[in-house]
């Protein structure tokens, strides 16, 4: 490890601690043998509306605290480096989450999710690009928006941008649109899910298909059904498989959008075959392999019995719930209203229309068939 990398790790520690303290405030000290239930415990004890009707839990609390800090006093300079590590905590949590599944369950959930995700993803992409062309948007801009609305939000936009020669403003508009839409989903999906009486399985499928950003799927699933180390969240278990299926599709989507872009813009300089070769390996999400390895290790009994769960498996669940809380605190800390205000005009209308249709149609499919 180079000196600069190790000094960066040291510089990241205060920010990680900062996120941990916010998570601790929200979750309380019960995981560490304490009695304090945190802000979540206080809300449940004192507010029937917030606790029982809106079912506000630590996930929503950490995101709101993060957003409040970011948009009022801002992230302290000493915490900025650490806040950037929030995605690593989410990814570590997802890898540990693999201990909830067996290979048979993964195959069963995976086959349904591949069908649903592929259908919605590719139809959203084609629809968004068609709508963009109809409203005379710049092809690079509609390609970025299609990637964000179809696959997994910001990562997809960033992955597609070089292939479609997107301009800086195309990327900024698309990211702002997708994030704004996602934040609305994050807060409305769990409430709607409870109002409609969805089962945790149905909610997981809906959130995993209809919400555009990986962190927001995770947050919505945990907000709907937080689970406990003894009884893990079913909506998270189902939703995360849908989310990972979407993430794995990313390289294929970059290829599809590049081809559509080349056709719509008559750009002869875009080489789809070369782009496919280059992006398939560079964009493949490596951490998904870690998740699959954990599923395999759990299935082969490396961590002890699953029913009832061994002490090791219960410890994994406790740890991943903390990793998710720390990661989602970072997600909240990175939501800037100033950035979101960059969304507007035609991209906002088209992105929101595509996102809304995807959310509504996936809800109908889930209600009718599952």
């Amino acid at each position: 490890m180079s000196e600069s990398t190790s000094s960066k790790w040291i510089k990241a520690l205060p920010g990680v601690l900062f996120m941990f303290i916010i998570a601790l405030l929200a979750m309380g000290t019960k995981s560490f043998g304490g009695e304090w239930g945190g802000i979540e415990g206080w809300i449940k004890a004192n507010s029937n509306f917030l606790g029982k009707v809106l079912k506000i839990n630590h996930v929503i609390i950490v995101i709101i605290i993060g957003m409040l800090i970011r948009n009022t006093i801002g992230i302290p300079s000493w915490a900025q480096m650490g806040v950037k590590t929030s995605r690593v905590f989410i990814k570590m949590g997802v890898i540990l989450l693999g201990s909830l599944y067996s290979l048979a369950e993964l195959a069963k959930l995976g086959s349904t999710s591949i069908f649903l995700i592929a259908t919605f993803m590719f139809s959203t992409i084609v629809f968004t690009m068609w709508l963009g062309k109809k409203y005379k948007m710049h092809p690079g801009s509609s390609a970025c928006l299609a990637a964000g609305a179809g696959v997994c939000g910001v990562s997809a936009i960033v992955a597609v941008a070089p292939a479609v020669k997107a301009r800086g403003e195309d990327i900024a508009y698309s990211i702002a649109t997708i994030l704004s839409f996602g934040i609305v989903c994050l807060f409305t999906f769990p409430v709607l899910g409870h109002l409609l009486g969805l089962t945790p399985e149905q909610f997981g499928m809906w959130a995993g298909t209809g919400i555009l950003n990986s962190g927001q799927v995770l947050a919505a699933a945990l907000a709907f059904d937080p689970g406990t180390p003894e009884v893990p969240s079913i909506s998270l278990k189902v939703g995360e498989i849908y989310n990972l299926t979407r993430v794995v599709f990313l390289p294929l989507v970059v290829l599809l959008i590049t081809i559509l872009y080349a056709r719509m813009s008559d750009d002869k300089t875009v080489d789809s075959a070369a782009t496919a070769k280059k992006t398939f390996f560079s964009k493949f999400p490596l951490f998904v392999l870690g998740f699959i390895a954990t599923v395999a290790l759990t299935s082969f009994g490396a961590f002890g019995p699953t029913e009832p769960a061994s002490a090791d498996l219960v410890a994994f669940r406790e740890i991943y719930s903390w990793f998710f809380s720390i990661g989602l605190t970072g997600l909240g800390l990175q939501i800037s209203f100033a950035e979101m205000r960059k969304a507007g005009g035609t991209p906002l209308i088209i992105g929101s229309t595509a996102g809304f249709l995807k959310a509504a149609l996936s809800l109908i499919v889930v209600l009718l068939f599952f």
Partner: protein
Amino acid sequence: MSEKKEERQLSLFSNEKSEDLAAIIGAALVMIIVIIL
């Protein structure tokens, strides 16, 4: 350009692959520690 440079300086990871690798190593360490304890 300077914004990109600043972004890179504020980030621990040069790209998404190294972030994924860090997550895999971190999760493996957690598993080992839990099993040992």
